[in-house]
């Protein structure tokens, strides 16, 4: 029993509710949101340390014992994802101070961001499948508001599509939970896992596994289901896109990781083969998009899809090495995607366009921006001292060990094209002769650069400190590859 687990959900929830009462006072909004997300960050560091020293932490809400009540479970994976989420939320709020504009800030922007964090942290922490649905809805509802917040034409147009896709996938989630409930008769994830193992080899469970793949694939943008993402993420301002790109798809990816390691081990030859093929196709279609566009935001958006594919390929191979690699890559990708969207936002603030053909020679006037974008690009592609390297190395290594040569080769090739896509931004946007931007004077971007600097610095530290992080990652991968640890921690037999 441990109340620390619920704090990363409770702190943003309470502070978000409080901030609603002071909606017109921008100073209170800003500093209240920053303070609450900072405290969330501290609490999640404590949570990670606690999980490290004492093993998986569980909390039975209202003291109802495990299969009967809702249980919150913090294993190493969810604790670390909660920490990453809190860091990104904090930097996003800092970045919003200067970028989002007072009109939006006055209309409940910060409370909604905090509610989004509630949903994401809750989805990472919950141990109950229906509660996962509810937290999904919390974060989706907040994301509906954020995507249309401001009400420009493109936002209105794209949010209709975004909401429609998510309404359908939510209905599908309810349907799938209904099917699962009729087969196993329980909603607690550990208990479901136990009963699925007891009921071994029934065909309906494989069908449910594929349904879950479709549901979470719609949320997490895997190959045939990613069609909604490029348009929707293109619409909102860059602070919001950064939050979406770093967190929302990753919740879907986390849910696939959780269900496919905990529940559906009974017919892995079939389900994981499908996951593997879809992951590889996701990578291929993602890189095609990333190299096709001449728009900074579109390039980064397609890189999200590539990263989802790489992580899921690691999950589908299901060896401890690739699982560790996937976890490593997942956290790296959350940080670096947020950083890239922030940097793209600064570039758009300077030049007034996101089209690469519209500007060049930024590095003469903005060297800090240029070099941090360069570092972020190298980290994205996985150049050794930076953060993307270790994860991809482990995935490729595990892929070769598991004799998935094609998959591993495609992961390697994709790095090349990812590097090409972001270097295109660097070469065309930052090199060359300075071209006229809107307003000849140097745009003051000092305050805007704080958030991307923090994240790029963090990604460098993350890459250098691989040795320090490794025990945490190994511990997280252990729980994933051996579900009995999770089941015992929750059901306490």
């Amino acid at each position: 029993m441990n109340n620390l687990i619920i704090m990363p959900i409770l702190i943003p929830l309470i502070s978000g509710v409080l901030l609603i009462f002071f909606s017109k006072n921008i100073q209170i909004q800003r500093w209240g949101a920053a303070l609450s997300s900072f405290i969330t960050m501290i609490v999640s560091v404590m949570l990670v340390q606690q999980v490290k020293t004492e093993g998986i932490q569980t909390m039975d809400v209202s003291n109802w014992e495990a299969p009967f009540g809702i249980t919150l479970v913090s294993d190493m994976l969810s604790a670390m994802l909660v920490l990453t989420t809190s860091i990104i939320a904090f930097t996003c709020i800092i970045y919003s101070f200067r970028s989002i504009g007072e009109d939006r800030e006055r209309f409940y922007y910060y409370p909604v961001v905090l509610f989004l964090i509630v949903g994401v942290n809750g989805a990472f922490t919950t141990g109950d499948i229906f509660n996962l649905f509810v937290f999904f809805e919390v974060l989706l509802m907040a994301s509906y508001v954020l995507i249309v917040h401001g009400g420009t034409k493109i936002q209105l147009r794209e949010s209709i599509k975004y909401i429609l896709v998510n309404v359908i996938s939510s209905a599908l989630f309810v349907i799938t939970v209904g099917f699962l409930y009729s087969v196993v008769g329980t909603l607690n994830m550990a208990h479901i896992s136990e009963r699925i193992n007891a009921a071994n080899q029934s065909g309906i469970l494989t069908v449910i596994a594929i349904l879950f793949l479709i549901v979470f694939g719609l949320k997490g943008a895997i190959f045939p289901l990613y069609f909604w993402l490029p348009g929707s993420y293109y619409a909102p301002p860059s602070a919001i896109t950064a939050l979406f790109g770093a967190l929302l798809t990753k919740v879907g990816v986390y849910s696939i990781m959780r269900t496919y390691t905990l529940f559906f081990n009974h017919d892995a030859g079939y389900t994981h083969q499908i996951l593997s093929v879809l992951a590889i196709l996701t990578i291929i279609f993602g890189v095609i998009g990333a190299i096709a566009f001449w728009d900074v935001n579109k390039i980064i958006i397609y890189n999200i899809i590539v990263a989802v594919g790489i992580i899921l390929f690691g999950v589908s191979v299901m060896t401890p090495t690739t699982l560790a690699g996937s976890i490593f890559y997942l956290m790296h990708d959350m940080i670096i995607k947020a950083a890239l969207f922030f940097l793209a936002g600064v570039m758009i603030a300077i030049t007034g366009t996101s089209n690469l053909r519209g500007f060049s020679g930024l590095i003469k006037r903005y060297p800090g921006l240029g070099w941090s974008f360069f570092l972020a690009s190298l980290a994205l592609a996985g150049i050794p001292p930076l953060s993307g390297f270790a994860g991809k190395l482990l995935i490729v290594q595990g892929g070769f060990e598991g004799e998935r040569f094609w998959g591993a080769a495609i992961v390697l090739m994709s790095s090349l094209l990812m590097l090409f896509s972001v270097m295109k931004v660097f070469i065309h946007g930052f090199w060359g002769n300075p071209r006229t931007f809107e307003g000849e004077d140097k745009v003051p971007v000092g305050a805007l650069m704080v958030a991307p600097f923090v994240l790029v610095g963090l990604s460098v530290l993350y890459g250098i400190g691989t040795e320090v992080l490794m025990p945490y990652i190994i511990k997280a991968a252990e729980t994933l590859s051996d579900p009995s640890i999770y089941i015992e921690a929750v059901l306490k037999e």
Partner: protein
Amino acid sequence: MEILMAFVIGILFMSATYLMLSKSLLRIIIGTGLLSHGAHLLLLTMGGLKRGAPPLLGEHAETYTDPIPQALILTAIVISFGVTAFFLVLAYRAYQELGTDNMERLRGTERHE
């Protein structure tokens, strides 16, 4: 009974899919309404439709119906209610701003963002 319900739910899903593939935004929203009806009925059916008293302990019955799916449906109903309300207002706002409810004309191209 479950067989009958399965057919009814199937028809609901069928009409929801048909409506959501149409051009008009309002028909799409009606489709999402039907889809959530289908999902909620499915939850109820999947919980089992055995005979029993309503889940009230004051009934002093031999058997009760399963209370969990009912709680799940109640949760799902209010969630879809909230989302539908938001969606309807969004459609209204989009109609005001963009002047059309035709999904064909809500395409984005690079020229007019």
